[in-house]
């Protein structure tokens, strides 16, 4: 039998449901893997072995008493630390929340638990999800299993590191400007950002509320779809959650795996290529567009003239929202308090606490957002960025009149070396070039591995209209099947063993 940690989530669930492996065995195998390799990867900030084994035992008990199990029951999961978990630390990668134990579960945590999915622990991330490399974590960086001297992407780099290093078959990430898709691309995984409002934000420590969205990071398209169906759907606790059925993403993934895209209209976005893109990335992208043709799709080039302004618009909107959201860290109700000696007043204690508790990137963005929202600058910066956001949505709308999906590279480059961009914020921000338009438009987008450049994985991004997440999964599953057929193995199989 294949080693348990090498199996994908769908296969593990079948083993458990069929009684060929217990959930406890599966969980223990992954805990052992974490013990063996996480010293090198540093994917986890907190491992909850006791809680994981208890959750696994509960699944085994349900099975032995003849109860029906959900499609992912007993399968281990790595949870990004931005998602609050009752009784388990939730730091969001920040010193300001060190030691905080949340008194409640996020909706997605509740849904994961209710599905019998086994939470192994909490994963590393850029502080408050601000970053593209996980180097902004207050707890040290995560390493890319493909090359330990490179970044695993960010901000969900702990989850991408854990899943690509076989420490967990399922990962949860959150994506504000690309933080699921970009880490997936640079570690050879599948990562999907759902339609905004498709997955509840209740219990996500807020960064940019009009953009934040949680989603799956997995080794296969089907696993991502299975996890999407567990966490997705309307939640009365999140007033921005969409009251509509979850798109049929599992059925779409199964359909896509038949590798027939006859009649599908695919648009290649002209603006998402060119300067700043590595030749190897563009080559793999062009080959994959060729594969789509072989699968029966018709390809046209489309222009989305405002996509070039997504980066400046995003780096006004997200910092503005974050400067407002992070005002909650006031040294009163949770987390750190510094300098409260009985003489200092509230405001001084607050300022000292935030100075000590926030890292450099968070401070930069809070200051930038405060600036963009200042009277006198508001119209020129934040207000103008919101108008550009409308134009980007309209570009998508026009493109989807003639195309079913749009494609681009997920990232302009492969994983970059640790330390290469930490002192150059604009270079770091450029990692999100291709993922930002769908974030601003609130539309779904997936990244699926499509090849290697210089021995490192390259991702294809598939974008669809709002609530048509199923199209992303169908096309991604077809690409996954075609690439595996071409190479004789999935992309991740080429990763060096740790």
């Amino acid at each position, binding site marked *: 039998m294949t080693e348990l940690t090498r199996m994908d989530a769908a296969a593990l669930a079948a083993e458990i449901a069929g009684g060929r492996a217990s959930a406890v065995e599966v969980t223990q195998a992954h805990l052992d893997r974490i013990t063996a390799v996480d010293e090198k990867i540093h994917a986890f900030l907190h491992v909850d072995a006791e809680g994981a084994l208890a959750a696994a035992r509960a699944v085994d008990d349900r099975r032995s008493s003849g109860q029906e199990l959900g499609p992912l029951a007993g399968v281990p999961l790595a949870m990004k630390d931005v998602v609050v978990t009752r009784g388990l630390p939730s730091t969001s990668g920040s010193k300001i929340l060190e030691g905080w134990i949340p*008194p409640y579960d996020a909706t997605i945590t509740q849904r994961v638990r209710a599905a019998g999915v086994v939470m192994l622990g909490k994963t590393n991330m850029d502080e408050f999800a601000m970053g593209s490399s996980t180097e902004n974590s207050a707890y040290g960086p995560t390493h890319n299993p493909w090359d330990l001297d490179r970044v695993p992407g960010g901000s969900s780099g702990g989850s991408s590191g854990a899943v690509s290093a076989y420490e967990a078959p399922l990962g949860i990430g959150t994506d504000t400007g690309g933080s699921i898709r970009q880490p997936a691309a640079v570690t050879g995984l599948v990562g999907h950002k759902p339609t905004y409002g498709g997955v509840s934000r209740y219990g996500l420590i807020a960064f940019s509320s*009009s953009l934040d969205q949680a989603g799956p990071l997995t080794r296969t398209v089907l696993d991502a779809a299975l996890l999407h169906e567990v966490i997705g759907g309307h939640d009365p606790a999140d007033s921005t959650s969409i009251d509509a059925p979850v798109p049929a993403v599992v059925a779409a993934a199964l359909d896509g795996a038949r590798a027939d895209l006859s009649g599908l209209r695919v648009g290649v976005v002209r603006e998402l290529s060119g300067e700043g893109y590595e030749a190897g990335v563009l080559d793999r992208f062009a080959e994959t567009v060729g594969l789509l043709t072989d699968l029966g799709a018709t390809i046209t080039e489309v222009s989305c003239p405002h996509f070039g302004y997504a980066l400046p618009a995003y*780096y006004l909107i997200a910092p503005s929202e974050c400067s407002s959201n992070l005002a909650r860290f*006031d040294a009163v109700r*949770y987390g750190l308090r510094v300098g409260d000696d009985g003489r200092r007043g509230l405001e001084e204690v607050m300022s000292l606490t935030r*100075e000590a508790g926030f890292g450099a990137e968070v401070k930069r963005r809070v200051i930038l957002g405060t600036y963009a929202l200042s009277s006198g600058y508001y119209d020129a910066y934040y207000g103008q960025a919101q*108008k550009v956001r409308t134009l980007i949505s309209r570009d998508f709308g026009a493109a989807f009149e003639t195309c079913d999906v749009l494609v681009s590279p997920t990232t302009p480059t492969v994983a970059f070396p640790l330390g290469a961009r930490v002192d150059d914020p604009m270079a770091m921000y450029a990692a999100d070039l291709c993922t930002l338009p769908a974030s601003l438009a609130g539309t779904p987008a997936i990244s699926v591995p499509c090849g290697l450049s210089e021995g490192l994985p390259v991702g294809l991004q598939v974008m669809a209209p709002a609530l048509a997440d199923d199209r992303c999964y169908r096309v991604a599953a077809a690409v996954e099947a075609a690439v595996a057929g071409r190479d004789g193995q999935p992309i991740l199989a080429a990763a060096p063993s740790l």
Partner: protein
Amino acid sequence: MASITREEVAHLARLARLAVTDEELQTFAGQLDVIIGAVARVGEVAAGDIPPTTHAVPVTNVLRPDELRPSLARDEVLAAAPAAEDGRFRVPRILDDPE
């Protein structure tokens, strides 16, 4: 010419309740100058009569039934606070010293 000065950054940091150091002020002023120069490109777009988007997938007047439900357990919430006293959050001094 710099688009943002060190003094402006210091003022913004005060507004945002960040007790930044002189060294940080120096670094941030330089970096923010570059970032603001780059994001100012949004001004190139002719968007005069375009309506702004606050939420890409708009939903309005979302209400839920007005029903009684348990709140978070007080003791659990206070246990996670930096300081608590008599079943309440204890805050730093908020009134001027009487002396």
